[in-house]
């Protein structure tokens, strides 16, 4: 008997129904035999069984045996979420010679057992859902998965340490990688750090070799100062439009000699330097930082005299013997075809001004941690000297943890890195200045290899620790020793009283937040976000680098706060997941796609602009809509919108859905 053909669509349904106990997960919450017996009486049901674990090998074998013995042609399994085991059971059908789409799964675990406490009610709901599935499965049709080639090239968005690591991993595996970075140089936040915890190795020393490797890698096309403007298509076949902003310096000619900068009409740097958090100055033509990659200068049109007045003598262009300066450079649009997208767009540091009681922007002695990173750094604005804005060396420094983290007023989450980097900064400040350093913390969170040991080391170094959240930073002196100081007020929860600690410098350990434009970016790539705004992984534990959109992976802090080791590990994982798809060389398309019933389409074009995957087009000769099934993701938008009902969707045809609704509503 061959059930695997289209003729069996019409054959009378012989349904096998299986209800899973899932140990006590399901069986403990509802009356499994009652549901089994209820379904057994439904028309078309030949076999109805319950089993302890349907997903186990014996469970699957039971299903296969029944298909053969009882000539079953439709199967319903009531168990857990289809997300977990739909594929398992479809494979079991296939193994028994039955088309895998003659199958319907009912989720009576997550949708019933886990969300109800009333057993009779839960049993009734399970019966309704099972009855719906049994009615619907009769209308299931023979379907086939299609295979389409998977484009081997990859686009990595964001070139911080996550993007760099992922790009290098895939490029080393022989894949062609496009690496797009919004800023003029790659490196991200890591390039701004001085030392890294807990080993205290210099961030630049470990990062710049990777940056150079990216630049020189034959398989990597690096586009900095560029942004993705548009994505179309789906896994295996994305079309991406990248906008390259003009830097007014020809990248292929510039060798980074800095002659243009030296000869700028501005003799002294005058404008706030972004890379140094505004603590230093730069000229309109500048190099973001000494190890900037690509090592190419750029001109900031906002401050450049030529762009502002048109009356500059263009001494920079004259000074360039390679004629690399090009004031007429225009934005460039690049269109590329790739199979995989890997997003590593990073994070933003919490805006300390949102916690006004800490006086950031009010008291000059209050700094953010990232500003301190630049002050400590040898290539920073003070060449590595920690000095206050007035040039004084601080004799005492207070570090406030959890600014914009673990705070009901701002962000609830723990940013995971602040405790450790605060310890690192405490160490560096003490080392550079000999100042007394006070750490104000809520809880000291140091999980990680050698992290707790680092904390122990700091305790021995004589850094002070006060367990308590600082309520305010003020310059209101209540005693002579507080005069001219910033006073941190906090309840020392271990000592049990309120402390006032006068210091010269305050460091706010600001947390990590989603990028301000994370929603726009999520829409651009059609991926989801979790409630706080970081990109949503497909599964928090089992698919941490996947998204709900096939072929799009995430790595690093765009998914949530994490430190460098975790970021690098995640980038590697995302690269490996991407490679797994690429090396398979094809992608199997789920058959739940939409199709136009050509005879009845009136050619009204209502569906054409709606498709989020640009799968619908209009055939100008036939005057009918056409759906490219390799692009269709089965979202159903066009099906709902077609005003004459001429678009159908496999597995979601009207008769299937209406019979399902009837099943839910028909109660015994």
């Amino acid at each position, binding site marked *: 008997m061959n059930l695997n053909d289209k003729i069996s669509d019409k054959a009378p349904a012989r349904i096998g129904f299986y209800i899973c106990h899932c140990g006590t997960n399901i069986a403990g919450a509802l009356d499994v035999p009652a549901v089994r017996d209820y379904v057994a009486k439904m028309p078309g049901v030949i076999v109805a069984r319950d089993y302890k674990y349907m997903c186990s090998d014996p469970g699957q074998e039971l299903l296969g045996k029944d298909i053969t013995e009882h000539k079953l042609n439709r199967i319903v399994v009531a168990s857990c979420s289809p997300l977990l085991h739909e594929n398992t059971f479809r494979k079991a059908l296939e193994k028994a010679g039955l088309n895998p789409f003659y199958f319907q799964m009912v989720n009576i675990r997550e949708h019933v057992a886990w969300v109800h406490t009333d057993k009779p009610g839960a049993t009734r709901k399970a019966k309704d859902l099972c009855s719906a599935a049994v009615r619907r499965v009769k209308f299931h049709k023979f379907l086939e998965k299609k295979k389409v080639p998977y484009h081997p090239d990859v686009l990595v968005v964001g070139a911080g340490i996550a993007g760099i690591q992922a790009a290098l991993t895939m490029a080393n595996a022989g894949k062609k990688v496009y690496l797009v970075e919004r800023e003029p140089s790659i490196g991200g936040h890591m390039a701004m750090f001085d030392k890294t915890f807990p080993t205290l190795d210099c961030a630049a020393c470990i990062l710049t070799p990777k940056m150079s490797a990216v630049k020189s890698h034959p398989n990597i096309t690096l586009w900095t100062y560029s942004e993705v403007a548009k994505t179309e298509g789906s896994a295996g076949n994305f079309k991406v439009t990248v906008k390259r902003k003009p830097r007014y310096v020809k990248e292929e000619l510039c060798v980074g000699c800095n002659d243009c900068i030296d000869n700028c009409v501005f003799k002294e740097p005058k404008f706030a330097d972004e890379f140094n958090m505004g603590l230093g100055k730069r000229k309109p033509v500048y190099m973001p930082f000494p190890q900037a990659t690509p090592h190419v200068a750029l001109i900031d049109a906002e401050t450049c005299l030529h762009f502002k007045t048109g009356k500059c003598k263009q001494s920079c262009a004259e000074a360039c013997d390679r004629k690399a300066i090009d004031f007429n450079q225009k934005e460039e649009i690049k269109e590329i075809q790739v199979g995989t997208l890997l997003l590593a767009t990073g994070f933003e540091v919490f805006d300390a001004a949102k916690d006004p009681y800490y006086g950031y922007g009010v008291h000059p002695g209050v700094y953010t941690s990232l500003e301190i990173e630049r002050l400590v750094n040898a290539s920073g604005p003070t060449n590595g000297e920690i000095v206050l804005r007035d040039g004084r060396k601080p004799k005492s420094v207070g570090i406030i943890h959890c600014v914009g983290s673990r705070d009901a007023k701002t962000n609830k989450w723990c940013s995971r890195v602040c405790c450790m980097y605060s310890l690192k900064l405490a160490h560096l400040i003490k080392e550079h200045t000999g100042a007394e350093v006070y750490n104000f913390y809520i809880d000291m969170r140091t999980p990680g290899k050698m992290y707790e040991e680092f904390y122990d080391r700091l305790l021995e170094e004589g850094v002070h620790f006060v367990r308590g959240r600082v309520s305010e930073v003020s310059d209101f002196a209540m005693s002579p020793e507080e005069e001219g100081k910033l006073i941190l007020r906090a309840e020392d929860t271990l000592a049990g009283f309120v402390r006032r600690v006068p210091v010269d410098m305050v460091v706010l350990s600001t947390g990590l937040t989603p990028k301000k434009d994370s929603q726009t970016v999520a829409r651009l790539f059609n991926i989801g976000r979790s409630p706080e705004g970081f990109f949503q992984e497909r599964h928090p534990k089992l698919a941490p680098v996947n998204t709900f959109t096939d072929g799009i992976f995430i790595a690093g802090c765009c998914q949530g706060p994490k430190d460098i080791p975790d970021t690098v590990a995640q980038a590697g994982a995302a690269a490996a997941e991407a490679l797994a798809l690429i090396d398979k060389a094809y992608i199997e398309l789920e058959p739940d796609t939409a199709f136009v019933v050509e005879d009845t389409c*009136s050619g009204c*074009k*209502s569906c*054409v602009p709606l498709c989020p995957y640009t799968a619908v087009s*209009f055939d100008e000769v036939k005057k009918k809509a056409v759906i490219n099934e390799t692009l269709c993701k089965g979202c159903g938008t066009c099906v709902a*919108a077609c*005003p*004459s*009902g*001429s678009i159908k969707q496999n597995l979601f045809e009207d008769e299937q859905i209406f019979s399902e609704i009837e099943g839910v509503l028909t109660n015994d």
Partner: protein
Amino acid sequence: MADKPKIAFYWCASCGGCEEAVVDLAEDILSVVSAVDIVLWPVAMDFKKADIEAMPDGSIAASLINGAIRTSEQEEFVRLLRKKSGAVISFGSCACTGGIPSLANQFEKERILSYVYEQAPSVINELKTRPQLESKGDEGHSLELPAFREMVRPLDEVIKVDYYLPGCPPTPKLIKEAVTALLTGKLPPAGSTLAPDTALCEECPRKDSKPADLAISEFKMPSGAVIDPEKCMLAQGFICMGPATRGGCEALCIKGNMPCTGCFGPTSRVKDQGAKMLSCVASSAAGKEDAEIDKTLAGIPDPVGTFYRYGLAKCRLRGKADRVPGKGVRQKA
């Protein structure tokens, strides 16, 4: 006479336009009249209910029934015709999908009666007298009136219907084709609608001028605007029901430079015409923010009357809706 097939025409909640449409067959009506034996046609001929009751069951070849069903009298008569007829044809929008009368389904029966008999500006009824199902006359005789039901229903929710002939009214061409098919016995499978099953856009002379992305920022009413005679109505911002409406009328209204109002009802694949058109139009608004969309939608002051002008009785979202004028629909449990 005895050899000719017997035909009955009947009307329920309707305006009489469908009757006009039969007369509109012009000279063709003569061939119809000569080919059949009309046993019932209240608008034109004097037959009584008793005449029909006296006929053997199934002896009428076909009954063409127009109008929606609101009263017990209509129910009684169509049930009688069903019993006596071989085929029943649901004739016109009201019989097929409820038509204009079914717009009354926005209001509860009580609200309708109290408005008509008590509140309407032209009514003076201090005793609040309402028609009674039964009343005694002065001379002791009793009078009976049909019951006024809760809702307006299409014909096929009262009796089994064999064929549907849509339109407000059906066009002479389709009537002729239907009658010819009846007389020659060349009928499609029972349950069919005797009109094409593609949407109107297919036969619309303005089809090519419809852009793929309508991006409508303003909806206009035909009454207050100049209508371009060449360009797609939707592209001009007029709600044209064409994409969600069965073709077959040869775009009569469009050719008269008015947008389609949807009288042919949905295609066989669509269960709820208004919902379909709403879903289609909702996707065509140019604005992306709520405020812009609200502004655009304000151009459709009467959505129910626009999207369900002929089909409210077939709307899937049926419940007891009670509409307070100017305040939208308040759904009752």
